[in-house]
């Protein structure tokens, strides 16, 4: 017992906060580095690392010090405790990371209470940014993408759409957002279904969708192995994506998803804010540097982390190194910049991300399946918050 305690004591020594903290700004990065969502955390972390490598670790005379903490999945109690701890124990000035909605919501309380600047680099539920006046988001919102897609779908000539979504919070949001955009434009929802979260057999759902005889089928899927299963079922049920349009949020045609789907994925149309195939000089340089550093392509998580760091660096430059929550959030309001994803800005009222939503189609380029942008909706604000009573 004594030896164990001594061992623990020795470990605890390493965790003691360093005292020479005057000339540094500490950023507590709370997200899932382990568990089911580990890859999300890894990619956000890669984005952060690349930004710091490119721009140096000193800004406005202050050294940026990261304090990474593992949330380990959906655990708001842990997220809240870790956020508290990095502030009271390690003396963090800024909270960053946050891959999942419940975790971001819980940490928002801490940010509001401690008056600390918080950068939400991924969690995509609209309501999150309203929970702390010191929070900014650099990812996207589900409403932003899907309501735009709904409106676009009607404009592109679709009149009757069937919706199929994963039966949990974000899926419900996607369903509501797409239906709102599509119906407000004048379209008709001919049917809708929700599939169980862990579902792997999509044939019966797609058969039912096909029987409703729609012009298009909207599918919301949270990534993972399901897109491949969907691709298979689409081919099996004899649905031709060039005639009955398959629509969805970008996760449906992630790089990995497309590998699993094969040619069944050809012609699927998705709305998203970032893809490594986005054609711009800025993105080309970003992807090249990312490939060299991490031997893989960046994705939406990477760009969320990258732009999150950009917001932190630029805000610190404006405040001349002052890491006070009030000063930083004021500095970031209305900030505009060119990101690898294209032009983006921070809404001065809601502190949420304003960006271009790209409409992409899966095509074969040089033998590989990629998302090719063929249309876009510029300067999209989060529509959910725009409708909220002020």
């Amino acid at each position, binding site marked *: 017992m004594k030896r164990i305690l001594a061992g*623990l004591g020795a470990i605890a020594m390493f965790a003691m906060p360093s005292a020479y903290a005057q000339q540094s700004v500490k950023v507590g990065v709370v997200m899932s580095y382990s568990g089911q969502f580990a890859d999300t*955390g890894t990619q956000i972390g890669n984005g952060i690392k690349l930004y710091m490598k490119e721009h140096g670790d000193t800004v406005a005379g202050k050294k940026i010090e990261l304090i990474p903490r593992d949330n380990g999945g959906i655990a708001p109690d842990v997220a809240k405790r870790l956020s508290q701890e990095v502030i009271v124990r390690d003396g963090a000035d800024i909270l960053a990371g946050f891959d999942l909605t419940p975790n971001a919501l819980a940490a928002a309380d801490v940010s509001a209470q401690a008056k600390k600047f918080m950068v939400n680099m991924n969690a995509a539920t609209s309501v999150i940014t309203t929970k702390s006046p010191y929070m900014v988001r650099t990812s996207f919102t589900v409403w932003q993408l899907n309501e735009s897609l709904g409106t676009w779908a009607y404009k592109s000539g679709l009149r009757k759409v069937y919706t199929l979504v994963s039966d949990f919070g974000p899926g419900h949001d996607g369903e509501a957002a797409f239906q709102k955009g599509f119906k407000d434009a004048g379209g008709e929802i001919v049917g809708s279904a929700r599939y169980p979260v862990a579902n792997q057999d999509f044939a019966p759902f797609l058969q039912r969708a096909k029987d409703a005889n729609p012009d298009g089928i909207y599918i919301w899927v949270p990534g993972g192995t399901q897109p491949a299963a969907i691709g298979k079922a689409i081919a099996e049920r004899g649905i031709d994506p060039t005639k009955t349009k398959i629509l969805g949020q970008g996760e449906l045609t992630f790089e990995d998803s497309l590998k699993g789907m094969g040619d069944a994925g050809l012609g699927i149309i998705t709305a998203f804010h970032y893809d490594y195939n986005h054609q711009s000089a800025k993105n080309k340089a970003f992807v090249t540097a990312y490939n060299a550093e991490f031997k893989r392509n960046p994705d939406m998580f990477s760009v969320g982390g990258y732009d999150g760091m950009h917001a932190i660096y630029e805000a610190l430059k404006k405040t001349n190194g002052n890491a006070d929550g009030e000063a930083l959030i004021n500095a970031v309001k209305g900030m505009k910049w060119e990101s690898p994803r294209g032009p983006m800005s921070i809404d001065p009222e809601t502190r949420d991300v304003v960006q271009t939503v790209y409409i992409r189609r899966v095509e074969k380029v040089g033998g590989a399946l990629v998302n090719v942008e063929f249309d876009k909706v510029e300067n999209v604000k989060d529509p959910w918050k725009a409708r909220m009573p002020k």
Partner: protein
Amino acid sequence: MAVMSSAVTNPHQFLQAQNRWHWIEVAFWLATLLPFVLTPSYLSLASQIAITALFALSLDLILGYAGIVSLGHAAFFGFGAYTAGLISKWGWGEPLSGLLIAAFSAAVLGYLMSFIIARFRHLTLIMMTLGLGLLLFEVANKASWLTGGADGLQGVHMWPLLGMFRFDLYGYTAYTYALIVLFLLFLLSRRLTNSPFGLALRGIRENLTRMRAIGATSRSHIRTVYTISAAIAGVAGGLLTQTTETVSLGVVDFQRSADVLVILVLGGAGRLYGGLIGAIIFMVARDQFSGINPQYWYFPIGVLLIAVVMFLPNGILGGLARLVASWRSRSQ
């Protein structure tokens, strides 16, 4: 039990001896006050350790004492957590009464379940409790109008404890509150297990058939202890909700049931301090390892668990008891 040495002649003497406070126990509880002085910046971690310890204690009552294996104990933890959260959301943020209601509702669920539990043993029981846990998880996930589903319950706000102590950022109130509740329920459990009822439970654990043969009731005992255990788990869940002001699906998921089982095995099942020691070691190790390496901290935890299971099959406390026993026999 190994510690039930040959010196004990009759059950009354045994129980009396067990009820006496050993100086190590007193020292242990005094040591729980140390975080206030030594590591005041670790108080919110300390409060979550106390809550986990309470949860492990509740599992110990059924698994360690009555031999009821459960892989779904988070069902009661989560039920208490959601109850406490909902009461607060609906406008009653008083912590103590909220905790009582959480305990009561979890006890009711536990009582209803106990009728099924008391009929089965071993593997069947694992499947039953696992099923119950998964079922409750799905219910919480589906009923998003009530529970907030995957986004978690929003709008939980607690009033100051006793109208005086706000739940602060440093966790002073949270740890004090959790520690007092843990201590009180520990006293209750200690009294319970060191009573004839506790002895009957051990009999059930060791040999159910023989208990029936000597005319002892078993099912009603199982129902009673299961209900008590559910209530304590509900209190632990309620405490987590109240001290963090958040509730999510994480409180009912399988991971939580599995973690608490691991904690109990680590510390030593069948000893009241097993869950407490297990919780301290597991949570502190997790906190420190994940601070050093947020990506691969599960590896040292895994090594720790394998080492404990290989070298100390009765947990850390079991190993210590064996050490003490061998030391005593040598010095005699």
